[in-house]
């Protein structure tokens, strides 16, 4: 055997089939809706779509991180209601907006940490732990708001909240109102968070550590990565992002309801799963979850433009999830079947 045998393995080139499923789902839905539904592909509707989807996009980012570690966070919706009601109540009491916002963010984050504590330190299964926490959060929201919508008087101290929903700029592309392209601060906050999340995930060790904890806790431990710390961190992030989403919601509707987060955890899970996350953990991507969330809102938006009732939207989302899961399973099997032929193998010295 001579010494200068080398094996060359080239990385697979970029392939469309490597994109998260939500890319195609979003792409296909987008084209269909643009063609079939008048007013869907209009500047103002698309601007509006992004604004509507922003809170969900934000919590989907947190949810997909939690799911990547092999856990789940059912308390996100409750957390949104709770932090929203608390922030609104503080505003109602005349507190300055910045104080209310910081309180809300801190409470949301602590709530997430508590989830992490129950899951990791008390060893309660994530499903049950966050399920219980969902009840607790919803209950606190009801207690604080006394089951009523919380409004606040506009005043100089809380202009910041108003500022969140103003538009940075508007461009009139035609003389009809549907031809206004606008960029809201809500959209900007969403984009900033998405960029930071993707940056942290890709450019620091955090992403790789999340994957390793989700794929196999034992591997993580062998590489001196603490599953406890990682899971506490992702739950805290999920809680923080829930509070941010809550802020966007209430600034858009200028009030907070104790039920405003109901069901959002489910939509975030749907977004994460059609974005390529597996409930077993260890895979998935943040851009996938973002596109998943956008797909859901494209459906909502298009259905409402087409005059379909909100009732159908619920059914539709349930169906989208089931189809998405089955689709994911099919892709998995297809890959699995072809795995042996697809794998890059070492061309051994013997054969050369």
């Amino acid at each position, binding site marked *: 055997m001579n010494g200068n045998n080398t094996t060359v393995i080239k990385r697979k080139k970029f392939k469309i089939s490597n994109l998260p499923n939500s890319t195609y789902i979003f792409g296909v839905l987008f084209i269909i809706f643009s063609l079939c539904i008048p007013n869907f592909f209009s500047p103002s509707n698309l601007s509006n779509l992004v604004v509507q989807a922003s809170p969900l996009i934000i919590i989907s980012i947190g949810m997909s991180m939690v799911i990547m570690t092999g856990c789940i966070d059912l308390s996100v919706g409750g957390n949104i209601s709770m932090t929203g009601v608390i922030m609104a109540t503080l505003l109602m009491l005349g507190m300055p907006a910045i104080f209310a916002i910081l309180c809300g963010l801190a409470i949301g984050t602590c709530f997430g940490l508590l989830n992490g504590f129950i899951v990791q330190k008390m060893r309660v299964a994530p499903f049950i732990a966050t399920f219980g926490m969902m009840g607790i959060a919803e209950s606190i929201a009801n207690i604080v708001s006394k089951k009523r919508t919380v409004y606040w008087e506009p005043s100089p101290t809380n202009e910041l909240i108003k500022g969140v929903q103003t538009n940075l700029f508007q461009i009139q592309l035609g003389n009809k109102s549907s031809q206004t392209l606008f960029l809201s601060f809500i959209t900007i906050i969403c984009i900033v968070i998405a960029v930071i999340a993707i940056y942290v995930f890709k450019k620091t060790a955090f992403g790789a550590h999340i994957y390793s904890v989700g794929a196999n806790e034992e*591997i993580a431990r062998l590489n001196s990565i603490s599953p406890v710390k990682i899971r506490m961190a992702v739950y805290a992030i999920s809680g923080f992002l829930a509070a941010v989403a809550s802020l966007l919601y209430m600034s858009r509707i200028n009030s907070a309801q104790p039920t405003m987060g109901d069901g959002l955890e489910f939509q975030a899970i749907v977004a994460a799963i059609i974005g390529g996350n597996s409930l077993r953990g260890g895979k998935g991507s943040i851009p996938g979850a973002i596109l998943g969330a956008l797909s859901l809102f494209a459906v909502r938006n298009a259905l409402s433009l087409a005059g379909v009732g909100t009732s159908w939207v619920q059914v539709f989302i349930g169906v989208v999830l089931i189809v998405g899961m089955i689709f994911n399973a099919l892709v998995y099997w297809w890959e699995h079947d072809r795995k042996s032929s697809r794998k890059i193998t070492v061309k051994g010295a*013997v054969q050369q």
Partner: protein
Amino acid sequence: MSKLLEIKGVCKSFPGVKALEDIDIDLDYGEVHVILGENGAGKSTLMKILSGAYQADTGEMFVEEQKVLHNSPKVSESLGIRMIYQELNLVEELSVAQNIFLGKEQYKGIALNKKQMNENARQMMANMNILVDPNTLIKDLGVGTQQMVEICKALSTNAKILVFDEPTSSLTDSEIAELFRIIRMLKEKGVGMFYISHRLEELKEIGDRVTIMRDGKKILTTAADQISMNEIIEGIAGRKIENLFPHTRKEPGDCLLEVNGLTGEKFRNVSIKVCAGEIVGMSGLVGAGRTEVARALMGIDRCNGGEAFLVGKPLPKNNIQKVVDMGLCLLPENRKTEGLALSLSIRENTIISSINRLFPGLITQKKKESQVVSQYVTDLNIATSSIEKLVQYLSGGTQQKVVVAKWLMSQSKVFIFDEPTRGIDVGAKSEIYRLMDELTKQGAGILMISSDLPEILGMSDRIYVMAQGDLVGELDAGEATQQEILRMAFKQHSPAVEEVG
């Protein structure tokens, strides 16, 4: 020259089993030390003591003449001891570079220094003559290359001692050749390596020295080129303990199970026969496709071709319930995950496959259940205070007996035992053997899959040998020897290596 590693007088006991007895072993710089032995000979236990996963009861360990006091995974890591496991410890969804630097990433400011890590990873892999794009995901690599990444990862932290635990069990021939090339390269760099393997021909290929272990004892250590294959096989197998195997051979009765040309994903064209009163052994290396044949017969896995008959009637495919009803049963190797419901009682575990027959009216009677189960518990000599005891509290041997009781009660005609005595201590072993003998006396047929050669030779009437998915031979137990079986089992495996060596 001083020794890289020395282990002196190591003993280790587990409840009921003496796993290691007074083992001395050492390792030189740049040496490949092959450790051979059957399953349960104590190889893995020894390596776990080396890596700090287990603590030795007595004995000393020196690394580069320094005595190691309290070994632990952390200590052994700091000493430069690294394990390359059978099951790879890589994260599939991460890239080569990310895996190599997992947990010890390099930073530039607040961001990862990806360029540097990629370059380092590329360099390290290139040092082993593998030019791989460090951004490639692990899941896109073949098992062989994955193993190289694993080695690379170990080397990235200055490993002095590498332990390979059955590294070639899932590799193709060309991948094995590649692995050996790297092992030779590491030798030149002075890395000491323990190499655990079932494949004897590999010893001649890369081994410098060889140690043979059996029943927790070291049998011999010698230079690899001074020992013949026959000596090795004798050393591994040892003497037979005749009375451990109570099987009384007799004329086989009617043919119970007949398999013609069964073909599945991991095996091809398997034709076997099991008659009443007969124990048929199925030998071969781990991964030869024996368990897969059993699973296909049971209808657990799909099979692509061939047919099987039980007492003349064709066995349905992919229908476990029907297969079980017809009287074929499997006692899986992994009792705890595939054989028993650990959180339920002996009674519930025993009765489960017979309730339809016992209670055709759907309504159960606990009294009748208890009576029937107690009968079997007494017959099989199952050591328990009460049939309501949860099976998770039973010992391995007793658990196995509960599984036997379950199938005995369901009136099975052919029993497939997959590694019937793995993880069972010697005393319980002979009880299981007596039980198997008893089953054949009552007219049942047994197909016994086992990697334990003395067990195969001691218990079987006939022996099939499988290698790499093919049925390579059939031997009469009276004439078969361990050497013959091993040669057959290795037969299909050697050509590539011979070509090189």
